[in-house]
Protein backbone atom coordinates (compact mmCIF):
# COMPACT_ATOMS: atom_id res chain seq x y z
CA UNK A 1 0.00 0.00 0.00
CA UNK A 2 2.78 2.43 0.94
CA UNK A 3 4.77 1.70 -2.20
CA UNK A 4 1.58 2.09 -4.25
CA UNK A 5 0.99 5.53 -2.71
CA UNK A 6 4.59 6.49 -3.39
CA UNK A 7 4.22 5.25 -6.99
CA UNK A 8 1.11 7.37 -7.52
CA UNK A 9 2.82 10.42 -6.03
CA UNK A 10 5.95 9.99 -8.14
CA UNK A 11 3.95 9.42 -11.34
CA UNK A 12 1.92 12.62 -10.83
CA UNK A 13 5.10 14.57 -10.06
CA UNK A 14 6.99 13.19 -13.05
CA UNK A 15 4.13 13.71 -15.49
CA UNK A 16 3.14 17.19 -14.35
CA UNK A 17 6.72 18.48 -14.14
CA UNK A 18 7.36 17.18 -17.65
CA UNK A 19 4.26 19.03 -18.88
CA UNK A 20 5.20 22.19 -16.96
CA UNK A 21 8.69 22.26 -18.50
CA UNK A 22 7.21 21.82 -21.96
CA UNK A 23 4.87 24.75 -21.34
CA UNK A 24 7.51 27.18 -20.10
CA UNK A 25 5.02 30.02 -19.50
CA UNK A 26 3.81 28.12 -16.42
CA UNK A 27 6.97 28.84 -14.45
CA UNK A 28 8.39 31.83 -16.34
CA UNK A 29 5.28 34.06 -16.01
CA UNK A 30 5.20 34.19 -12.16
CA UNK A 31 8.97 34.69 -12.09
CA UNK A 32 8.94 37.60 -14.57
CA UNK A 33 5.86 39.10 -12.89
CA UNK A 34 7.61 39.00 -9.49
CA UNK A 35 10.77 40.67 -10.80
CA UNK A 36 8.84 43.34 -12.76
CA UNK A 37 6.73 44.32 -9.73
CA UNK A 38 9.84 44.56 -7.53
CA UNK A 39 11.73 46.60 -10.15
CA UNK A 40 8.88 49.13 -10.42
CA UNK A 41 9.44 50.36 -6.85
CA UNK A 42 12.98 51.80 -7.28
CA UNK A 43 11.82 53.25 -10.61
CA UNK A 44 8.80 54.94 -9.05
CA UNK A 45 10.28 55.98 -5.68
CA UNK A 46 13.87 56.73 -6.69
CA UNK A 47 17.05 54.96 -5.61
CA UNK A 48 17.06 56.05 -1.93
CA UNK A 49 18.64 53.18 -0.05
CA UNK A 50 16.99 53.75 3.33
CA UNK A 51 13.48 54.15 1.86
CA UNK A 52 13.73 51.08 -0.40
CA UNK A 53 15.28 49.00 2.33
CA UNK A 54 12.48 49.86 4.78
CA UNK A 55 9.83 49.05 2.12
CA UNK A 56 11.57 45.84 0.99
CA UNK A 57 9.76 43.36 3.32
CA UNK A 58 6.31 44.52 2.17
CA UNK A 59 7.27 44.84 -1.49
CA UNK A 60 8.89 41.41 -1.68
CA UNK A 61 6.03 39.74 0.10
CA UNK A 62 3.21 41.41 -1.86
CA UNK A 63 4.98 40.64 -5.14
CA UNK A 64 5.57 37.02 -4.05
CA UNK A 65 1.95 36.62 -2.97
CA UNK A 66 0.51 37.97 -6.22
CA UNK A 67 3.00 36.06 -8.38
CA UNK A 68 2.24 32.77 -6.65
CA UNK A 69 -1.46 33.30 -7.36
CA UNK A 70 -0.89 33.65 -11.11
CA UNK A 71 -0.76 29.93 -11.80
CA UNK A 72 -3.34 28.92 -9.19
CA UNK A 73 -6.17 28.41 -11.68
CA UNK A 74 -4.13 25.82 -13.59
CA UNK A 75 -3.64 23.50 -10.61
CA UNK A 76 -6.65 21.31 -11.44
CA UNK A 77 -8.28 22.86 -14.51
CA UNK A 78 -6.39 20.84 -17.12
CA UNK A 79 -6.86 17.55 -15.25
CA UNK A 80 -10.57 18.34 -14.92
CA UNK A 81 -10.91 19.15 -18.64
CA UNK A 82 -9.00 16.14 -19.96
CA UNK A 83 -10.52 13.59 -17.57
CA UNK A 84 -7.36 12.81 -15.56
CA UNK A 85 -9.05 14.01 -12.39
CA UNK A 86 -11.64 11.21 -12.76
CA UNK A 87 -8.84 8.63 -12.67
CA UNK A 88 -7.62 9.88 -9.30
CA UNK A 89 -11.02 9.76 -7.66
CA UNK A 90 -11.73 6.34 -9.12
CA UNK A 91 -8.46 4.81 -7.99
CA UNK A 92 -8.64 3.19 -4.57
CA UNK A 93 -5.83 5.34 -3.21
CA UNK A 94 -6.57 8.37 -1.01
CA UNK A 95 -7.36 11.46 -3.10
CA UNK A 96 -5.34 13.40 -0.50
CA UNK A 97 -2.21 12.18 -2.33
CA UNK A 98 -3.35 13.74 -5.59
CA UNK A 99 -3.96 17.09 -3.94
CA UNK A 100 -0.66 16.97 -2.07
CA UNK A 101 1.19 16.13 -5.31
CA UNK A 102 -0.53 18.98 -7.16
CA UNK A 103 0.38 21.41 -4.35
CA UNK A 104 4.01 20.26 -4.51
CA UNK A 105 4.07 20.79 -8.29
CA UNK A 106 2.54 24.26 -7.95
CA UNK A 107 5.19 25.19 -5.41
CA UNK A 108 7.99 23.80 -7.57
CA UNK A 109 6.88 25.81 -10.62
CA UNK A 110 5.94 29.06 -8.84
CA UNK A 111 7.22 29.12 -5.25
CA UNK A 112 10.73 27.84 -5.97
CA UNK A 113 11.47 30.28 -8.84
CA UNK A 114 10.14 33.13 -6.64
CA UNK A 115 12.40 31.97 -3.83
CA UNK A 116 15.40 32.09 -6.16
CA UNK A 117 14.38 35.44 -7.66
CA UNK A 118 13.84 36.96 -4.21
CA UNK A 119 17.62 37.23 -3.77
CA UNK A 120 17.77 39.46 -6.86
CA UNK A 121 14.79 41.42 -5.52
CA UNK A 122 16.58 41.86 -2.19
CA UNK A 123 19.63 43.32 -3.95
CA UNK A 124 17.43 45.69 -6.02
CA UNK A 125 15.72 46.88 -2.82
CA UNK A 126 18.97 47.24 -0.80
CA UNK A 127 17.95 44.63 1.76
CA UNK A 128 20.96 44.00 4.04
CA UNK A 129 22.75 40.70 3.58
CA UNK A 130 21.89 39.67 7.17
CA UNK A 131 18.19 39.64 6.25
CA UNK A 132 18.59 37.27 3.29
CA UNK A 133 18.27 34.05 5.30
CA UNK A 134 15.16 35.20 7.28
CA UNK A 135 13.62 36.38 3.99
CA UNK A 136 14.31 33.03 2.28
CA UNK A 137 12.96 31.07 5.25
CA UNK A 138 9.78 33.15 5.44
CA UNK A 139 9.24 32.80 1.68
CA UNK A 140 9.89 29.04 1.83
CA UNK A 141 7.18 28.55 4.46
CA UNK A 142 4.85 31.24 3.14
CA UNK A 143 4.85 30.28 -0.54
CA UNK A 144 4.27 26.63 0.43
CA UNK A 145 1.24 27.68 2.45
CA UNK A 146 0.08 29.86 -0.47
CA UNK A 147 0.22 26.81 -2.76
CA UNK A 148 -2.01 24.92 -0.31
CA UNK A 149 -4.47 27.82 -0.15
CA UNK A 150 -4.26 28.20 -3.93
CA UNK A 151 -5.22 24.56 -4.43
CA UNK A 152 -8.35 25.07 -2.32
CA UNK A 153 -9.24 28.22 -4.27
CA UNK A 154 -8.63 26.44 -7.58
CA UNK A 155 -10.85 23.53 -6.51
CA UNK A 156 -13.67 25.85 -5.47
CA UNK A 157 -13.46 27.85 -8.70
CA UNK A 158 -12.99 24.85 -11.02
CA UNK A 159 -14.64 25.42 -14.39
CA UNK A 160 -15.40 29.03 -13.51
CA UNK A 161 -13.59 32.32 -14.17
CA UNK A 162 -9.79 32.12 -13.78
CA UNK A 163 -9.62 35.21 -11.55
CA UNK A 164 -12.16 33.74 -9.11
CA UNK A 165 -9.64 31.38 -7.50
CA UNK A 166 -7.26 34.30 -6.81
CA UNK A 167 -10.12 36.34 -5.32
CA UNK A 168 -11.07 33.43 -3.04
CA UNK A 169 -7.48 32.97 -1.89
CA UNK A 170 -6.38 36.60 -1.35
CA UNK A 171 -8.34 37.36 1.87
CA UNK A 172 -7.03 34.15 3.46
CA UNK A 173 -3.46 35.05 2.60
CA UNK A 174 -3.40 38.06 4.98
CA UNK A 175 -1.95 36.12 7.99
CA UNK A 176 0.85 34.76 5.76
CA UNK A 177 1.58 38.27 4.48
CA UNK A 178 1.67 39.69 8.04
CA UNK A 179 3.92 36.93 9.36
CA UNK A 180 6.21 36.99 6.32
CA UNK A 181 6.78 40.73 6.42
CA UNK A 182 7.21 40.61 10.21
CA UNK A 183 10.05 38.09 9.84
CA UNK A 184 12.00 40.35 7.48
CA UNK A 185 11.17 43.57 9.36
CA UNK A 186 12.28 42.02 12.67
CA UNK A 187 15.56 40.90 11.14
CA UNK A 188 16.07 44.42 9.69
CA UNK A 189 15.60 45.84 13.22
CA UNK A 190 17.87 43.19 14.75
CA UNK A 191 14.96 41.67 16.67
CA UNK A 192 14.14 38.02 17.24
CA UNK A 193 12.03 36.71 14.35
CA UNK A 194 11.92 33.02 15.29
CA UNK A 195 8.40 33.34 16.78
CA UNK A 196 6.96 34.48 13.46
CA UNK A 197 8.71 31.66 11.63
CA UNK A 198 7.30 29.16 14.14
CA UNK A 199 3.78 30.46 13.56
CA UNK A 200 4.30 30.15 9.80
CA UNK A 201 5.63 26.61 10.30
CA UNK A 202 2.61 25.73 12.43
CA UNK A 203 0.26 27.14 9.77
CA UNK A 204 1.97 24.98 7.16
CA UNK A 205 1.91 21.88 9.38
CA UNK A 206 -1.83 22.28 9.96
CA UNK A 207 -2.45 23.36 6.39
CA UNK A 208 -1.01 20.23 4.78
CA UNK A 209 -3.62 17.82 6.15
CA UNK A 210 -6.41 20.36 6.73
CA UNK A 211 -6.34 22.25 3.44
CA UNK A 212 -5.60 19.12 1.36
CA UNK A 213 -8.67 17.38 2.80
CA UNK A 214 -10.84 20.47 2.24
CA UNK A 215 -9.56 20.64 -1.34
CA UNK A 216 -10.56 17.00 -1.94
CA UNK A 217 -14.10 17.81 -0.76
CA UNK A 218 -14.20 20.96 -2.90
CA UNK A 219 -13.11 18.97 -5.97
CA UNK A 220 -15.78 16.33 -5.39
CA UNK A 221 -18.44 19.05 -5.35
CA UNK A 222 -17.75 19.57 -9.05
CA UNK A 223 -19.11 16.11 -9.85
CA UNK A 224 -22.43 16.60 -8.08
Amino acid at each position, binding site marked *: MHSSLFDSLS*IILKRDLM*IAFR*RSSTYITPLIFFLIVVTFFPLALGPQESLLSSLAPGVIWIAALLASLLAVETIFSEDFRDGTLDDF*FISLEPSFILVFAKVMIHWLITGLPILVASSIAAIILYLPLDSFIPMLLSLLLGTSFMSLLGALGAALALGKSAILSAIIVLPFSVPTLLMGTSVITSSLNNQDFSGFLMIMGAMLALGIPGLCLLTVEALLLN*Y*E
Partner: protein
Amino acid sequence: MLPNLKVENLSCVRSDKAIFDEVSFDVLPGQNIEIIGSNGSGKTTLLRTLLGLITQDKGEIVWLDDAGKYHNYRTFECLYQGHQLGIKNLLTVFENLNITKHAKGMSQEDIYKHLERVGLSNVNEFASNISVGQRKRIAMAKWLLKEFKIYFIDEPFSALDDTATLLIEKLIKELNAKGCSFVITGHRPSGIEATRVEI
Protein backbone atom coordinates in the same frame (compact mmCIF):
# COMPACT_ATOMS: atom_id res chain seq x y z
CA MET B 1 -20.79 -17.47 -10.24
CA LEU B 2 -21.42 -14.34 -8.17
CA PRO B 3 -21.75 -10.90 -9.81
CA ASN B 4 -18.81 -8.58 -9.12
CA LEU B 5 -21.23 -5.66 -9.01
CA LYS B 6 -24.93 -5.56 -8.18
CA VAL B 7 -27.03 -2.48 -8.93
CA GLU B 8 -30.51 -2.39 -7.49
CA ASN B 9 -33.22 0.21 -8.14
CA LEU B 10 -30.73 3.00 -8.63
CA SER B 11 -32.18 6.50 -9.02
CA CYS B 12 -30.61 9.90 -9.33
CA VAL B 13 -32.55 13.16 -9.06
CA ARG B 14 -31.12 16.62 -9.72
CA SER B 15 -33.18 19.84 -9.44
CA ASP B 16 -36.38 17.78 -8.96
CA LYS B 17 -35.75 16.00 -12.27
CA ALA B 18 -35.00 12.27 -12.44
CA ILE B 19 -31.74 11.77 -14.33
CA PHE B 20 -32.37 8.00 -14.28
CA ASP B 21 -34.86 5.96 -12.34
CA GLU B 22 -34.97 2.44 -10.87
CA VAL B 23 -31.99 1.05 -12.80
CA SER B 24 -31.04 -2.52 -11.87
CA PHE B 25 -28.50 -4.96 -13.27
CA ASP B 26 -25.77 -7.40 -12.22
CA VAL B 27 -22.26 -7.45 -13.66
CA LEU B 28 -21.09 -11.06 -13.83
CA PRO B 29 -17.44 -11.92 -14.50
CA GLY B 30 -16.76 -12.00 -18.24
CA GLN B 31 -20.13 -10.49 -19.13
CA ASN B 32 -21.00 -7.04 -20.40
CA ILE B 33 -23.67 -4.45 -19.72
CA GLU B 34 -24.57 -1.93 -22.40
CA ILE B 35 -26.44 1.13 -21.21
CA ILE B 36 -28.49 2.55 -24.07
CA GLY B 37 -29.97 6.03 -24.06
CA SER B 38 -30.29 9.19 -26.09
CA ASN B 39 -28.22 12.35 -25.55
CA GLY B 40 -28.75 13.73 -22.06
CA SER B 41 -30.47 10.60 -20.80
CA GLY B 42 -27.98 10.26 -17.92
CA LYS B 43 -25.62 7.56 -19.18
CA THR B 44 -22.47 9.37 -18.01
CA THR B 45 -24.14 10.28 -14.70
CA LEU B 46 -25.04 6.61 -14.22
CA LEU B 47 -21.42 5.50 -14.80
CA ARG B 48 -20.13 8.17 -12.42
CA THR B 49 -22.73 7.18 -9.83
CA LEU B 50 -21.66 3.54 -10.05
CA LEU B 51 -18.07 4.59 -9.41
CA GLY B 52 -18.96 6.79 -6.44
CA LEU B 53 -18.22 10.16 -8.03
CA ILE B 54 -21.89 11.13 -7.68
CA THR B 55 -24.16 10.13 -4.81
CA GLN B 56 -27.34 8.28 -5.73
CA ASP B 57 -30.70 9.36 -4.31
CA LYS B 58 -32.14 5.87 -4.10
CA GLY B 59 -31.03 2.31 -4.64
CA GLU B 60 -28.00 0.23 -3.84
CA ILE B 61 -24.63 -0.42 -5.43
CA VAL B 62 -22.77 -3.37 -3.93
CA TRP B 63 -19.34 -4.74 -4.78
CA LEU B 64 -18.04 -8.27 -4.26
CA ASP B 65 -14.78 -8.70 -2.36
CA ASP B 66 -12.27 -11.52 -2.66
CA ALA B 67 -13.87 -13.34 0.29
CA GLY B 68 -17.24 -13.51 -1.50
CA LYS B 69 -18.90 -10.81 0.63
CA TYR B 70 -20.75 -7.76 -0.67
CA HIS B 71 -20.00 -4.21 0.44
CA ASN B 72 -21.51 -0.83 -0.35
CA TYR B 73 -18.07 0.53 -1.17
CA ARG B 74 -15.81 -0.41 -4.07
CA THR B 75 -13.60 -3.35 -3.20
CA PHE B 76 -11.45 -3.49 -6.32
CA GLU B 77 -9.89 -1.14 -8.81
CA CYS B 78 -11.77 -0.45 -12.04
CA LEU B 79 -10.91 1.37 -15.23
CA TYR B 80 -13.09 4.32 -16.18
CA GLN B 81 -12.89 6.17 -19.46
CA GLY B 82 -15.17 9.13 -19.88
CA HIS B 83 -15.57 11.32 -22.95
CA GLN B 84 -12.30 13.14 -22.18
CA LEU B 85 -10.18 9.95 -22.14
CA GLY B 86 -7.53 11.29 -19.72
CA ILE B 87 -4.97 12.03 -22.43
CA LYS B 88 -2.40 14.80 -22.00
CA ASN B 89 -1.76 16.97 -25.05
CA LEU B 90 1.80 17.85 -24.05
CA LEU B 91 2.86 14.22 -23.72
CA THR B 92 3.69 11.97 -26.66
CA VAL B 93 1.60 8.93 -27.55
CA PHE B 94 4.21 6.73 -25.83
CA GLU B 95 4.44 8.92 -22.71
CA ASN B 96 0.66 8.99 -22.36
CA LEU B 97 0.79 5.25 -21.87
CA ASN B 98 4.15 4.93 -20.15
CA ILE B 99 3.68 7.59 -17.44
CA THR B 100 0.72 5.90 -15.79
CA LYS B 101 0.44 3.90 -12.62
CA HIS B 102 -0.61 0.76 -14.46
CA ALA B 103 2.46 0.78 -16.71
CA LYS B 104 4.78 0.40 -13.74
CA GLY B 105 7.37 -2.29 -14.28
CA MET B 106 6.63 -2.55 -18.00
CA SER B 107 9.44 -2.34 -20.51
CA GLN B 108 9.45 0.07 -23.46
CA GLU B 109 8.91 -2.93 -25.73
CA ASP B 110 5.74 -3.90 -23.83
CA ILE B 111 4.35 -0.39 -24.27
CA TYR B 112 5.25 -0.35 -27.98
CA LYS B 113 3.58 -3.76 -28.33
CA HIS B 114 0.33 -2.45 -26.80
CA LEU B 115 0.41 0.64 -29.01
CA GLU B 116 1.05 -1.48 -32.07
CA ARG B 117 -1.83 -3.73 -31.07
CA VAL B 118 -4.25 -0.78 -31.28
CA GLY B 119 -2.73 0.40 -34.56
CA LEU B 120 -0.61 3.31 -33.33
CA SER B 121 2.82 3.64 -34.90
CA ASN B 122 3.40 7.38 -34.40
CA VAL B 123 4.58 6.84 -30.83
CA ASN B 124 6.68 10.02 -30.60
CA GLU B 125 3.92 12.32 -31.83
CA PHE B 126 2.47 14.74 -29.28
CA ALA B 127 -1.14 13.88 -28.41
CA SER B 128 -2.15 17.42 -29.37
CA ASN B 129 -1.27 16.61 -33.00
CA ILE B 130 -3.29 13.44 -33.41
CA SER B 131 -6.94 12.87 -34.36
CA VAL B 132 -9.83 12.07 -32.02
CA GLY B 133 -9.89 8.51 -33.37
CA GLN B 134 -6.20 8.06 -32.58
CA ARG B 135 -6.72 9.46 -29.09
CA LYS B 136 -9.37 6.80 -28.62
CA ARG B 137 -6.80 4.23 -29.69
CA ILE B 138 -4.41 5.44 -26.94
CA ALA B 139 -7.29 5.02 -24.51
CA MET B 140 -7.82 1.48 -25.83
CA ALA B 141 -4.13 0.70 -25.32
CA LYS B 142 -4.62 1.60 -21.64
CA TRP B 143 -7.07 -1.30 -21.34
CA LEU B 144 -4.17 -3.63 -22.07
CA LEU B 145 -1.85 -2.35 -19.34
CA LYS B 146 -3.63 -4.25 -16.59
CA GLU B 147 -6.58 -6.61 -16.36
CA PHE B 148 -9.41 -4.98 -14.41
CA LYS B 149 -12.45 -6.84 -13.15
CA ILE B 150 -14.76 -4.18 -14.62
CA TYR B 151 -14.11 -1.57 -17.33
CA PHE B 152 -16.50 1.39 -17.37
CA ILE B 153 -16.31 2.97 -20.81
CA ASP B 154 -18.44 5.91 -21.88
CA GLU B 155 -19.47 5.67 -25.55
CA PRO B 156 -16.48 3.62 -26.73
CA PHE B 157 -17.73 3.40 -30.32
CA SER B 158 -18.18 7.12 -31.00
CA ALA B 159 -15.77 8.87 -33.42
CA LEU B 160 -14.27 5.59 -34.63
CA ASP B 161 -13.82 4.12 -38.09
CA ASP B 162 -14.88 0.55 -38.92
CA THR B 163 -11.40 -0.89 -38.27
CA ALA B 164 -11.25 0.65 -34.79
CA THR B 165 -14.81 -0.50 -34.04
CA LEU B 166 -13.88 -4.06 -34.95
CA LEU B 167 -10.71 -3.75 -32.85
CA ILE B 168 -12.72 -2.66 -29.79
CA GLU B 169 -15.11 -5.57 -30.25
CA LYS B 170 -12.15 -7.94 -30.50
CA LEU B 171 -10.43 -6.51 -27.42
CA ILE B 172 -13.63 -6.70 -25.38
CA LYS B 173 -14.11 -10.33 -26.43
CA GLU B 174 -10.53 -11.18 -25.46
CA LEU B 175 -10.83 -9.50 -22.07
CA ASN B 176 -14.22 -11.15 -21.49
CA ALA B 177 -12.54 -14.51 -22.02
CA LYS B 178 -10.16 -13.61 -19.17
CA GLY B 179 -13.10 -12.87 -16.86
CA CYS B 180 -13.14 -9.08 -17.30
CA SER B 181 -16.49 -7.32 -17.68
CA PHE B 182 -17.42 -4.13 -19.50
CA VAL B 183 -20.09 -1.60 -18.61
CA ILE B 184 -20.39 0.58 -21.68
CA THR B 185 -22.79 3.26 -22.85
CA GLY B 186 -24.10 4.09 -26.29
CA HIS B 187 -26.95 5.62 -28.25
CA ARG B 188 -27.83 2.34 -29.96
CA PRO B 189 -26.94 -1.34 -29.42
CA SER B 190 -23.41 -2.18 -30.54
CA GLY B 191 -22.06 -5.41 -31.98
CA ILE B 192 -20.77 -6.76 -28.66
CA GLU B 193 -22.47 -9.47 -26.67
CA ALA B 194 -24.07 -7.68 -23.72
CA THR B 195 -27.13 -7.33 -21.53
CA ARG B 196 -28.83 -4.11 -22.66
CA VAL B 197 -30.16 -1.66 -20.10
CA GLU B 198 -32.23 1.20 -21.47
CA ILE B 199 -32.41 4.46 -19.57
